[in-house]
């Protein structure tokens, strides 16, 4: 199975690199966001770059959610999966190949973003690179698996696109990577506590901004790992090779299983308020760094 998974992963990486659409969304768009963020939000201030890079890294990693799960739905609809089903390959190998190839496709973008921030925007720190590596790795795998679970519970490309767009919008606008959570009304801030994307973004921003230690990102790492395992197993059980095999309504509820770790973590955070404090703290740091001292004194 390891050999087959690896062969499939290499094939899917090749196919992704031959797709202009994939290259645009996974490489060009994150770079566009990076330049836009640093130029418009950071106003070229090198001190703001680590925080902004944290958000951009989170965005790139979350992109694995779209990644190759859509390709799997397309393969099913076009009857391509049927040909693979004739070979001695199980659903596990097919799904794992999506996660592995996504993982390898995310890293060049992440490295490029780091290098641009360091050498073009003169970012003063590397942050905690090991914590970043851990979060990027587990994040890419988990968001990829979340994409797979959507692919497993939808019946066609149209349905997959609609559901992916809804979930992606929640990740994009409520995780803090586009709109800072500190700007949001109190009740919306509470909602963000139940999104995996919020934890990933906060973890990466912390690892970049104040070199957050392993223990500081442990909670989110555990939650993402449990989520990955649940999403993979549910996707494996619901996997379909045939275009005409439709999934029943009740079976779709299994998708919620992947969110259990974040429902628990969100409830816990809601009770103790630690994450929201951290988010507001990070936002204050970045505001102080980005604001010239004289103006800062005047405001106070």
């Amino acid at each position, binding site marked *: 199975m390891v050999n087959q998974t690896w062969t499939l992963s290499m094939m899917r990486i090749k196919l992704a690199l031959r797709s202009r659409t994939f290259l645009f969304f996974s490489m060009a768009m994150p770079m566009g966001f990076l330049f836009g963020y640093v130029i418009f939000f950071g106003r070229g201030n090198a001190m703001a770059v680590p925080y902004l890079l944290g958000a951009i890294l989170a965005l790139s990693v979350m992109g694995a959610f779209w990644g190759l799960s859509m390709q799997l739905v397309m393969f099913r609809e076009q009857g391509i999966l049927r040909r693979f089903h004739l*070979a001695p*390959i199980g659903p596990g190998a097919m799904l794992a190949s999506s996660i592995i190839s996504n993982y390898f496709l995310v890293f060049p973008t992440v490295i490029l973003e780091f290098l641009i921030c360091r050498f073009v925007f003169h970012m003063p720190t590397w942050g905690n690179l090991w914590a970043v590596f851990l979060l990027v790795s587990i994040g890419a795998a988990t968001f990829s698996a979340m994409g797979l679970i959507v692919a497993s519970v939808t019946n066609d490309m149209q349905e997959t696109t609609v559901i992916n767009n809804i979930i992606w919008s929640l990740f994009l606008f409520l995780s803090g990577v586009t709109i800072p959570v500190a700007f949001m009304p109190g009740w919306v801030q509470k909602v963000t506590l139940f999104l995996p994307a919020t934890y990933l973004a906060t973890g990466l921003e912390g690892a970049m901004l104040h070199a957050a230690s392993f223990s500081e990102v442990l909670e989110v790492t555990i939650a993402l790992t449990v989520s990955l395992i649940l999403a993979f197993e549910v996707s494996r059980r619901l996997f379909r090779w045939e275009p005409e095999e439709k999934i029943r309504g009740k079976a779709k509820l299994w998708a919620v299983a992947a969110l259990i770790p974040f429902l628990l973590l969100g409830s816990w955070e809601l009770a103790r308020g630690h994450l929201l404090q951290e988010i507001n703290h990070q936002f204050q740091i970045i505001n102080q760094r980005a604001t010239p001292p004289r103006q800062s004194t005047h405001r106070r």
Partner: protein
Amino acid sequence: MTEPVIQVEGLYKNYGAVEALRGVSFEVHEGELFGLLGPNGAGKTTTIEILEGLRTQDRGTVRVCGLDPQKSPLEMKHVVGAALQSTSLPDKMRVEETLEMFAHFYRNHRDPKELLKRFQLEEKRNAFYNQLSGGQKQRLALALALVNNPRMIFLDEPTAGLDPQVRREIYDTLEELKKEKKTILLTTHYIEEAERLCDRVAIVDYGRVMALGTPRELKQRSAATTRIEVRLSQPSADGALNHLDGVTDCRKLEETYLLHSSKPTQTIVALVKHLEAEGVELQGLEMFSPSLEDVFLELTGRRLRE
């Protein structure tokens, strides 16, 4: 006697209210090229896809190379090869890398380069799948079916929709595989394919096996008559040809008389005598033995349409 490579017993399959299979049973022996012949919707593809492990039956038992496709799917797939009725692969996969990738999935496999040569795909080795013609795609599908050097090969309508030239090339390939003593199960709705290639044929319609045997046996078993087509220098007297020895039916189609005879030799002798007596010249005579098409018509009351 060795155990059959394929054993199918009382196979039933419904798609909602549609009964696709209604008790299909047959066996395929080692080294045999066995054909399932029938029109579209007869149940051929459902049968072959159950054997390939792509679908599950509602009732009945299936063994392929001694394995149950549902209980030991991965083990079975290592020893069988298959080409679907319509093979789809990712557009941006190159021909050679497709063969290499599938070769990696199996414990035993053939050299992809040898398959490229055998299926005349060497020039297209670096072409993307979406740049191939229909015939080239089908040749690649056949090459993929052989990539694991299988004991048993399933081919679902391997020549459907292809032009006659490509079809002949595929017939040649299948004949080569026959010489290599590969066991092959082929579905088709082409009479000539079944007659030319198959050692034994099961005629399938409405989810049932209507008849089973070698093409010769099926034709011999049939009550179908020989068709004799005759062209004369002047019209024959009304009804005269109907009364010739062995003639069961006589029709005139434009300038040609179509005689159906159960005793073709006697009919021809009688015809020559009759024409001599009448002073009519014989301008042309052709004789057609009953085909599997006639057998199918006799069994089902309808024609196989190409």
